[in-house]
């Protein structure tokens, strides 16, 4: 699939997310928008999956450790054919399969339930251990937020993955520089990030998280190393809507009428640059 087509999908995902959050009245646009290209790259080019056989045992696994970005994941799963895109507008509503944070028992295509930050990487390690025991080739991918890296449990898992040489495991950090209360550097600095992962024994590659050629190269590299690998994907929080970009206020907020109209216009491509 060509980058232009993938860009169209990422735009589709952002439009879905905007409408879903607007319809729900709440949700997390900032971190959903920053992860759009990463998720599209994963589900259209990287993961070995069968959307019409979601439980195919030999599939690759994906864990959205930053569970609050699930509107983007739900859109990707729907557009990839796991369920009808019509369901997307039920996000966060009573009785919906699209919970405020992902519940794997409610929706096909989810490999884990997440939402409490810092838990996904250890689950991914456990899966990788299990597949290795079973001599299965399934790879395991885990998307983390950069604010999430403040959770100590992430580093327990990072240590374990290197100790056990889990080369089938790839983590992706959505490095959008912003968390709920402000910029990551102002709330609790996580740099030097590359050095941290390197010192924990991981293979590290830095990518432009909004560029499909850059992401493609990074994922190819990650699949070829003998170590657990991490892709630090540099992104922009709220990417695609000018007044949301880089602003912590849009971590978890629903746009009002005026903001919604403007965001819709920009995402549809009428953005004044």
């Amino acid at each position, binding site marked *: 699939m060509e980058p232009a087509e993938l860009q169209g999908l990422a735009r589709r995902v952002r439009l879905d997310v905007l409408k879903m959050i607007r319809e729900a009245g709440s949700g997390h646009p900032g971190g959903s928008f920053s992860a759009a290209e990463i998720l599209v790259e994963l589900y259209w080019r990287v993961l070995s999956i069968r959307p019409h056989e979601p439980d195919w045992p030999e599939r690759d*696994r994906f864990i959205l450790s930053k569970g609050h970005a699930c509107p983007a994941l739900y859109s990707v799963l729907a557009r990839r054919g796991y369920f009808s895109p019509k369901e997307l507008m039920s996000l966060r509503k009573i009785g919906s399969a699209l919970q405020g944070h992902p*519940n*794997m*028992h409610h929706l096909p295509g989810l*490999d*884990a*339930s*997440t*939402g*409490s930050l*810092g*838990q*996904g*990487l*250890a*689950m*991914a*390690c*456990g*899966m*990788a*251990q*299990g*597949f290795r*025991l*079973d001599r299965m080739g399934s790879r395991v991918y885990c998307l983390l937020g950069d604010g999430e890296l403040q959770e*100590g*449990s992430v580093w*327990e*898992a990072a*240590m*374990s993955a290197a100790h*056990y040489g889990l080369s089938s495991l790839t983590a992706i950090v959505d490095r959008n520089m912003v968390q709920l209360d402000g910029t990551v550097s102002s709330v609790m600095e996580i740099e030097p990030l590359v050095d941290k992962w390197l010192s924990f024994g991981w293979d590290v590659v830095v990518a432009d998280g909004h560029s499909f050629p850059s992401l493609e190269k990074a994922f190819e590299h990650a699949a070829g190393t003998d170590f657990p690998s991490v892709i630090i994907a540099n992104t922009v929080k709220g990417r695609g809507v000018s007044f949301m970009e880089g602003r912590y206020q849009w971590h978890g907020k629903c746009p009002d009428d005026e903001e919604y109209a403007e965001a819709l216009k920009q995402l549809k491509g009428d953005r004044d640059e």
Partner: protein
Amino acid sequence: MNEPRATREGYVEGILRAGEISDRVAVIEGDVSRSTGSAAFGERYPDRFFNLGASEQDMLGEAAGLALAGFIPFVSTYAVFLTGRAWDQIRTGVCYMDLNVRLGGAHGGTSVGPDGATHQALEDIALMRVLPNMKVLVPADANQTRASVLASLDMEGPVYIRFGRNPVPQIYGEDEPVVPGRGKLLNEGSDVTIVACGAMVSRGMRAVEILNRRGISAGLIDMVSIKPLDEQLLMEHAGHSGNIVVAEDHQMAGGLFGAVAEFLSRRLPVRIASVSVNDSFGTSGAPSEVMSRYGLTADAIALEAEGLLKDQAAVAD
């Protein structure tokens, strides 16, 4: 009666047998494999044994991952760290997904003795019992611990099994099964019913003897399955005697007393007393000394039983 044995010995026998029964059984440890005894599993099944070091959150997360990959992981470390340090991983990572993870809480209650308050799990039953999907087993001797481990293989979703460090009297034969939702009636009695778990069951047996000598007929239930609770057995015996003494090596709040009181207060309110640790941390000392300090004794159970009977007589007057 045979020589006393620690319930942790039963845990080790159980996981070794479980590993033999199913090659899907794995064990996750947290740098205390010689204390819990799970090192023996690692020697026999090195591929399925993961010592993840002192990192409880990672242990529980990886257990969830292994379960999602189709394994049945037994996670063992000191109960206080297992259930407290990684509670959110147990909640969201294990219980919310209803995964087949088995938690082996070692050194439960005051049995750690000299290590003191930091290492004495007195809140673990409460912490596990409030979680949806979690089942809680608190066996009273080594054979029952082994049987609990093996019973857990046939249970769906997460199971917590609490065991202790120090030798306790042997109560059950090797073939005595553990059935989820079923307690064991160890003694029939008409005046008062003692409901105990874990290390307090043998003390309950001694309390029955003490009470008998004083002309009081005391029943004894070993409530090995705290969740699901054996409600039928409780209804029968609470209704019969109208007096219940609950005994556990745990805080009064939220444990076996909590489970029994919550149930009976809704279905059959009776006079009820608790022998437990009352809103206090433990302390260092020999296990028997610590248990005496906190009133976790046969005498204390007997005293509470007599207190209930006095209350009953006062009401009758």
